[in-house]
């Protein structure tokens, strides 16, 4: 693609000038991060695919309003968080969410031992369940900071809160996650 070498800001400018194809570069560049963020927030692969698609479409429709004050990724994350939160609320009210791990492709899984692979999947399922049981705001903070490695400044900008508030809320969210995963730690301790 001719525009792959240019930055997000230039792609955005081209899209704003009517070059729809430049938006494809942005999609390819950010689809994985957005999809994973949404997927971890929702815990359902198909729902995540649908919501991620809506996120990019919504970004395209409102890209004329993007002034470039923040990074495009930050702006895109914010849209993703809003869509995922809305969908998570509707899913929570509609049905008990389930975690589908069969369909996902584990990239970092170098283990070939079936027993270890099963243990990995079990751990991932427990963590995902713990995230699902967290308050959505806490889950967002943990995922942005610990999964996506977004800086405090960007998190503060995405959520529209001061950095200090981000840190205190993140601390509280981590404590909540630790409490949720406490039985697992106790089991591991006894086993070890």
């Amino acid at each position, binding site marked *: 693609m001719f525009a792959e070498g240019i930055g997000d800001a230039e792609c955005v400018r081209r899209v704003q000038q009517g070059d729809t194809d430049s938006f494809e570069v942005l999609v390819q560049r950010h689809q994985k991060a957005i999809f994973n963020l949404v997927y971890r927030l929702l815990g359902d692969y198909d729902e995540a695919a649908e919501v*991620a698609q809506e996120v990019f479409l919504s970004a395209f429709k409102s890209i004329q309003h993007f002034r470039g004050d923040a990074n495009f990724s930050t702006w895109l994350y914010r849209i993703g968080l809003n869509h995922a939160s809305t969908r998570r609320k509707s899913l929570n009210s509609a049905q008990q969410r389930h975690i589908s791990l069969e369909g996902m492709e584990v990239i970092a899984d170098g283990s070939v031992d079936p027993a270890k692979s099963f243990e990995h999947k079990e751990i991932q399922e427990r963590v995902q369940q713990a995230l699902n049981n967290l308050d959505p705001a806490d889950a967002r903070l943990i995922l942005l900071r*610990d999964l996506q490695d977004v800086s405090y400044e960007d998190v503060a900008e995405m959520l529209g809160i001061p950095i200090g508030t981000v840190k205190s809320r993140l601390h509280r969210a981590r404590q909540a996650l630790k409490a949720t995963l406490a039985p697992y*730690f106790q089991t591991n301790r006894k086993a070890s």
Partner: protein
Amino acid sequence: MNCEEVQKYLMDSLDKSLGLEHVQEIEEHLGGCALCSEELASLAACQRLVFSLPAVDPPANFTARVMAEVREAAHPPSFWERLFVPLQMKIPLQATALLLIAVLAAYVYQKEPLQQESVVAIRPERFSSKQNETDKAAPSVAQAPPVDSRTTKAAKEANPGALPQEFIDAAQSKEPEALPKPSEQKKNTESQPGTPATTLAPEQVRPPATLTPTPNSSKLSEAASPRPEKSSPSGPAQATGALAPVPQTETDSALRGAPAAGKSMLSPEPRERNVASSLDALSSGTVLPADHELAIRLKKPTRDDKGTADRLRSDRAQVERQSSTLQQEEKSLDQARERAIETGEPQTVWLMIPRNQYALLKKDLAGLGNIEMESPILANKNDTVSKSSDRIRIRVTIFPPLPSASTLPSQPSTR
């Protein structure tokens, strides 16, 4: 540094953003405090677990799907694109729908051809103009069908001086009564099994190709009387109710041929020809008048006066011209004659005879009485029956005999 103060810096320690001035103090405290050390280990483990969650690839066609929606949002499909795209699916569907509509339209069109032709024949220009003329000349006959005004006008033109007022009155009073009401006419048409439900306007009504005062036609004529006031017990309508042939719609008369086959004066073959001719005339948009019109005044009956049919048959035997097709005409003439004598009212009979036997018929009629009016009406240009067929239509009006001198009121003698 105590445990409470250390808790504040655990987050920074996890994020490895702890200032150098606090690193040594925190490490010293964690080395001596198992509680804080365990807390930090638990938080770090949670962080690692979250971070170790595997990255999941989006669906393979994710970008394509997104860009398809993006392009659709950027360029909304035009009307034609919505109508025909995708071509491979919509074109066959639309072609099939068009074919079905065409087949259905053809089916409907073929199912009601007579009805369409009847609509064409409702107001032919020829009769509309004549109707206007008649309306201006005689407002009382305005409702009469075109054939009536034409008949009256032709009779006046043929012999205005000799034409008795009685004939004119009869022509004006009898003809409209034969007009069926539209509703009754529709009823008659619908009562025939297998006939299309066609409704014809009164202008369309005309004498049938062949009319015989059969019992069936008598009942129909009574039912089809358009003017209830005309069917008063002493009026001419009642006089003609039993035997007077009633003009019917072309379609009606044509389609009634089959049920009345046993009672009609014509053999089945001529009737079929009549039906075909009538339908041809309908399709050509014309209404057929009579080819000839005759008015006869009956002689006063005498005691030794035999039935007309018997006398005519004997005459025919004498000239050795046996014609089975005229027997029914003679019979109907005889019945009309008897009816005219009984009721004292003029009777009208419609006949359909071979063209070459017109002279013979005139001779027969001359035996019944005096031919007071003979009006050969030229065939219309569009008159397919008269042109193509060797049969002609004749309208015969039979007037009762004039009262004898003894029955007349006594006149003062001049002598």
